[in-house]
């Protein structure tokens, strides 16, 4: 099914066939990373602007590498030290950038819905690189690619997503993506970190880690932000890591072919014990390299699609 969308804003919008197309394209593009000359001329002459209002070195770097390997010109715009500090509104900044004719704007913002606002007003393609707690579609795509690579398929797999689901855009994008691809998803965490009405998203909910991970093919640990202690979500990091941290001992109760995933950066010793993060079940680094391939695929597909 040929990709026709002008923007990639959310996994919730996508059909399974579109997801498959991104994954297949990304899989084909992976070998560019192993070449001596990591460049193909495909997006030569295209301009990509990374509009990052939230600090993020890894995602931004991943998009930058993806764009540069495709021979595009990539410009990084981070909000600090710019007109945003002078109080320029998001829309004004975007329109100013658009006046310089980019082909793609990759946007990350702490406000849910910000990339959608941009996409409504900009002629060029918009990629959501993370908007508040709403979605992070390229993360879910690279997670799916990693799982598919390791397991050979997606449908029917059991996935446990563990941690602060309430504040996690990675969790939401993965929930939408995985349920669409026929995977069974269980979210697990203390009740204060599981969002209201979560079951209506088509997932199971568990408040016990051992129960959630017992039959999982894939365990995705989410990052705990230390700010969660204010607001009464958890009493302390210490208690959280004791109850919800994935240790080697807990891992022995899991399937022998389980995959451990994490969107990064990892709080070592909190949600993941260091031995687990670095251990043989962890595919965290594969996620990172697949991230570049997935972003190359997304940039490729978007720049080809003509706006409807």
């Amino acid at each position, binding site marked *: 099914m*040929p*990709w*026709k969308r002008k923007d990639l804003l959310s996994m919730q919008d996508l059909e399974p066939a579109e997801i498959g*197309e991104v994954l*297949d*394209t990304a*899989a*084909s*593009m*992976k*070998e560019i990373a192993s*070449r*001596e*000359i990591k*460049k*193909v*001329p*495909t997006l030569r002459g295209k301009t990509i602007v990374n509009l990052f209002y939230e600090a993020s070195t890894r995602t931004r770097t991943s998009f930058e590498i993806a764009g540069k390997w*495709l021979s595009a010109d990539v410009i990084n715009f981070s909000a600090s030290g710019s007109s945003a500090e002078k109080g320029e509104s998001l829309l004004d900044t975007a329109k100013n950038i658009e006046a310089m004719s980019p082909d793609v704007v990759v946007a990350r913002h702490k406000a849910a819905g910000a990339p959608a606002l941009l996409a409504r007003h900009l002629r060029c393609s918009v990629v959501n690189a993370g908007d508040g707690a709403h979605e992070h579609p390229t993360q879910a795509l690279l997670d799916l690619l990693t799982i598919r690579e390791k397991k050979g398929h997606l449908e029917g797999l059991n996935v446990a997503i563990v941690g602060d689901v309430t504040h996690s855009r990675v969790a939401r994008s993965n929930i939408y993506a995985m349920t669409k691809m026929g995977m069974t998803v269980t979210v697990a965490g203390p009740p204060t970190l599981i969002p209201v009405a979560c079951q209506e998203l088509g997932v199971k909910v568990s408040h016990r880690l051992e129960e959630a991970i017992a039959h999982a093919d894939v365990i995705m640990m989410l990052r705990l932000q230390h700010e969660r202690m204010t607001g009464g979500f958890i009493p302390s990091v210490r208690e959280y890591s004791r109850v919800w941290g994935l240790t080697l001992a807990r891992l022995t109760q899991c399937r022998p072919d389980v995959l451990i995933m994490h969107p990064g950066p990892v709080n070592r010793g909190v949600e993941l014990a260091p031995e687990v993060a670095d251990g043989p079940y962890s595919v965290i680094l594969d996620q990172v390299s697949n991230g570049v391939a997935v972003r190359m*695929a997304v940039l*490729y*597909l978007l*720049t*080809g*699609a*003509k706006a409807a």
Partner: protein
Amino acid sequence: MTQREKAQVLDEVTLDRALTRIAHEIVEQAGGVDDLALVGIKTRGETLAERIAQKILAIETVKPPVGALDITLYRDDLGLKAEQPQVRSTEIRFPVKGRTVVLVDDVLFTGRTIRAAMDALMDLGRPRIIRLAVLVDRGHRELPIRPDYIGKNLPTSRRETVAVMLREHDGIDRVVIQEPTDEQGG
């Protein structure tokens, strides 16, 4: 616009003979199999490259390495079409540097695919020599590209299509010329 078969130009036997001759020509010009590699252009070029490599094995008792090249990312017409063409993977598991690489494709037409293939190949390394083997040369070059080994020269008109069918893909080996039936509709 539908196509109608106008003529068959190669059948199973004549196709096989053409590949046998090409295999001999490659080996003769290269003076052996050392440093030789075949790279087929996806999709049917890859199949033909494999078949030629098998024939070279039969002649020289050594099989040259065979790779597959997807040229989608190097096309010069990206962004001109309605959607992006599907990207397949390039699989070349041997170093290209210093080798005699013979590109293999089914039909040579405008030459743009071969131009893209050469760019793709050069991004993987610096071959000593690049040569080109095609099953069918149908003319109408738009770039200064010329094949070294040709299965069959086939003068065609622009309106016509050359369809290459191979056992591994289409269940049968034959090459036909097709022409559009009517100009009505579209």
